[in-house]
């Protein structure tokens, strides 16, 4: 049955009323819809973070401007960092984890669909919680890294930091829950024949990221808990007067913070490793090495945290060890760059917008990586740290790296999500304006940084050699803004007016391209048996994959999973017709998430109105507990 027009956007099955409307989104347990929720919410926060950046850059366009006050400026750079890292880039990656991982491994959903929904709602409510204080001029203002003792009550008496501490604790729950879900999903729900070394690269990189989340978030949870205890209950963790170590916060934070940056980049690396082979019509060069290097990056990423602390006086031995580890980690990262280049080499290249963004990541991340390696030398870093040179570095890897990779992923997977292609012409405007604007914004910062411009200053005097670079950076920001407008317009418009997409508009190699666009609620009518790393090329372009390992799964596994030989599915059915049990929709995850946030919000009042604080905290906890119990004891499907 061929469809003439694309089915409705974000198809949630063909049962009419109950699968449309806002309630269907609130109660969804479908990983694809949850992924789309993450995508919209994260893009929204990305715009907010971008707006904050524009205000920052406007203030810094020229010396001694009075566009915003110093206090407001502190809130701006704090919220820009916090928003971009926790509310934009991580959830954009989560959008892809959610939408894509089950499709790539041949599963019908994640291991725990309701826990999955819970993660999203905690993110949404937590994101709103931490953003709301902006409107009351009490936004967090201690930097996105919130160093104590600065953020202790003695030095930050207002409610700003309370919002930050509580907000991040809430968001941590979201990430941890999602990590447990995806680890289980990837380990336990792969189609027959899909060994670990046959998983698509995006799933592999995401797998590494889940372990990073599981091991890194507890450290920041503890750091935040100590700060919370100090601020609300008078404990001594960061109290210098009681003999506390002024570096405790920094160590705990960066033990989280460094793996966090690998959490931010690896998913983008994974997306790029899907896009580049597809548009080179070649398998990824050195798949095994790409997997191992991803694992190495994750592992070594736990050994380098104190390179964020070269200027605090840890001593030569500590400095040297962390310097060497940091230099070491450049190796697996560099290897990836070469493998992507080798994939492109002699490929039959198609420069779609997705491909342009993917190649841009390779180039921009290399630049960011070079400045990163420059930081790895402690004596050099003493000049660079806390200057705009570092700002240049991390924007090259986070925007030039993560965001460009994510944009590649959005253009690439938009047809799979919606059944329509994004417009390539608008996409090209987006790409070029972003590419030019991005480089114009951040490249000059290498220079202003090395000329001594410190970070986090709300203004500067003329005549220090920084003026032109700042003006260029601000101009670049406005170009970025226009480019982003093209993206927003393209994204919104293409949902209803984009060219209709087939199963496989790009000539992809992996399972997600073997099923209809948009994906039916049940994902796969029949689970396919996977016989190589590029299952769809095996049947559509066998010459391309002739040289790689092929084998069959054992009969028992195939039978147990009711799998059939690899095939394309073009028919659009319903789960009911096919007799496939789907998880029930339920509002319990959303309600539990809301009660959890109410519980945490109670803490805000702890110093000002104890009765309200106790009521909210205890009330929220009880409601959360009962909601959770109800969720836990009701069947999934």
């Amino acid at each position, binding site marked *: 049955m061929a469809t003439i027009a694309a089915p409705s956007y974000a198809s949630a099955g063909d049962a009419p009323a109950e699968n449309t409307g806002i309630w269907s989104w609130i109660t969804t347990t479908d990983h694809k819809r949850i992924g789309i929720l993450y995508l919209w919410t994260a893009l929204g926060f990305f715009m907010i973070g971008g707006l904050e950046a524009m205000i920052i850059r406007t203030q810094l366009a020229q010396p001694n401007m009075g566009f915003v006050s110093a206090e407001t400026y502190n809130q701006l750079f704090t919220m820009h960092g916090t928003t971009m890292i926790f509310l934009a880039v991580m959830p954009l990656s989560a959008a892809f984890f959610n939408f894509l991982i089950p499709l790539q491994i041949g599963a019908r959903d994640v*291991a*725990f669909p309701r826990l999955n929904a819970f993660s999203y709602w905690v993110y949404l409510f937590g994101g709103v919680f931490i953003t709301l204080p902006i409107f009351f001029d009490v936004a967090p203002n201690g930097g996105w890294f919130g160093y104590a003792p600065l953020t202790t009550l003695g030095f930050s008496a207002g409610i700003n930091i309370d919002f930050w501490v509580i907000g991040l604790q809430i968001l941590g729950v979201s990430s*941890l829950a999602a*990590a*447990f*879900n995806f*680890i*289980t999903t990837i*380990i*336990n*729900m*792969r189609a027959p024949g*899909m060994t670990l070394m046959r998983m698509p690269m995006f799933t592999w990189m995401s797998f590494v990221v*889940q*372990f990073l989340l*599981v*091991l*890194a*978030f*507890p*450290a920041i*949870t*503890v*750091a935040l*808990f*100590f700060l919370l*205890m100090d601020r609300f*209950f*008078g*404990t*001594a*963790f960061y109290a210098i007067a*009681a*003999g*506390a*170590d002024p570096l*405790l916060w920094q160590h*705990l934070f960066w*033990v989280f913070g460094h793996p966090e940056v690998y959490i931010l980049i690896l998913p983008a690396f994974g997306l790029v490793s899907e896009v580049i082979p597809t548009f080179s019509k070649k398998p990824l060069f050195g798949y095994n090495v790409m997997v191992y290097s991803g694992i190495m990056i994750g592992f070594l990423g736990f050994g380098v945290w104190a390179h964020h602390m070269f200027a605090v006086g840890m001593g030569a031995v500590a400095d040297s060890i962390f310097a060497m580890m940091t230099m070491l980690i450049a190796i697996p990262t560099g290897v990836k760059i070469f493998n992507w280049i080798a994939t492109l080499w002699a490929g039959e290249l198609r420069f779609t917008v997705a491909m342009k963004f993917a190649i841009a990541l390779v180039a921009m991340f290399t630049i960011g990586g070079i400045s990163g390696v420059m930081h790895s030398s402690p004596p050099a870093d003493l000049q660079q740290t806390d200057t705009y040179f570092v700002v240049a570095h991390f924007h090259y890897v986070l925007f030039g790296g993560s965001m460009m990779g994510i944009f590649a992923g959005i253009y690439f997977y938009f047809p799979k999500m919606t059944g329509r292609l994004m417009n390539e012409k608008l996409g090209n405007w987006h790409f070029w304006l972003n590419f030019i604007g991005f480089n114009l914004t951040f490249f000059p910062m290498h220079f202003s940084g090395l000329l001594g411009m410190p970070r986090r200053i709300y203004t500067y005097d003329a005549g220090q050699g920084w003026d032109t670079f700042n003006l260029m950076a601000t101009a670049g920001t406005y170009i970025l803004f226009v480019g982003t407008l093209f993206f927003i317009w393209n994204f919104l418009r293409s949902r209803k007016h984009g060219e209709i997409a087939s199963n496989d508009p790009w000539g992809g190699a992996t399972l997600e391209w073997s099923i209809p666009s948009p994906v039916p609620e049940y994902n796969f009518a029949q689970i396919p048996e996977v016989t190589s790393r590029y299952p769809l090329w095996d049947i559509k372009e066998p010459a391309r994959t002739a040289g790689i390992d092929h084998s069959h799964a054992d009969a028992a*596994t195939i039978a*147990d*999973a*009711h799998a059939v030989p690899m095939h394309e599915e073009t028919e659009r059915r319903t789960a009911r017709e096919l007799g496939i*049990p789907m998880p029930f929709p339920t509002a319990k995850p959303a309600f539990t998430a809301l009660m959890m946030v109410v519980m945490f919000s109670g803490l805000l009042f702890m110093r000002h109105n104890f009765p309200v604080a106790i009521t909210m905290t205890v009330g929220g906890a009880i409601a959360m507990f009962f909601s959770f119990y109800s969720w836990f004891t009701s069947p999934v*499907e």
Partner: protein
Amino acid sequence: MHHHHTTTGLDNRKVAIWAFIGSECMLFASLISTYLIYKGRSLVGPFPHEEWVNEAGRHFHAILDIPVTSASTFVLLMSSLTMVLALQAVQLRGTPLPADAGWWTRAQRSSQTWLLGTAMLGVTFLGFQAYEFTMFVHEGLTIRTNLFGSSFFTLTGFHGAHVTVGVLWLVTLLFIDRKRGLQGPADELSVDIAALYWHFVDVVWIAIFTLIYLIQ
């Protein structure tokens, strides 16, 4: 529970509990590390292993009571034994009881006994903790007093909270056992997961007891 096919043959929840335990390891590692970093650095007492005289001349003895805490540690360790027996009891439910079975063979199958026993031992441990904390406060050590107080109460408090959650979990299982009986692979898995959690909490205590109480 539905018998879904899984790649490893393990139930999803079993894989998930191990991932969860992984995160908990890092959580307690961070708390324990902080305690160890702050060991010996409190500016004022009371101190864990040595006496202290404050400015007003009041005398404080070493605040940790190792004999008492050894007893509570023993109690918690025994609770792991009863937990193992509880799991075994549920697993034995499906097998027939020999006609000449003695008291121990019968007792082994009483999951209610062992679940209750584990929960009660857990509550006893918590009782010891409550007693200990109250004594410390009485003797002048609160969570705000010094670095030792802050790190000690936070670390053991987190652990106690985990024991409490475990006790509630066991009581819930006991309640279900009384209501409909625990039997079969689904229930065995439930008890197995609870047991993993319980043993983990016990192992954390062994680490805490060794590093905080025993090593001086």
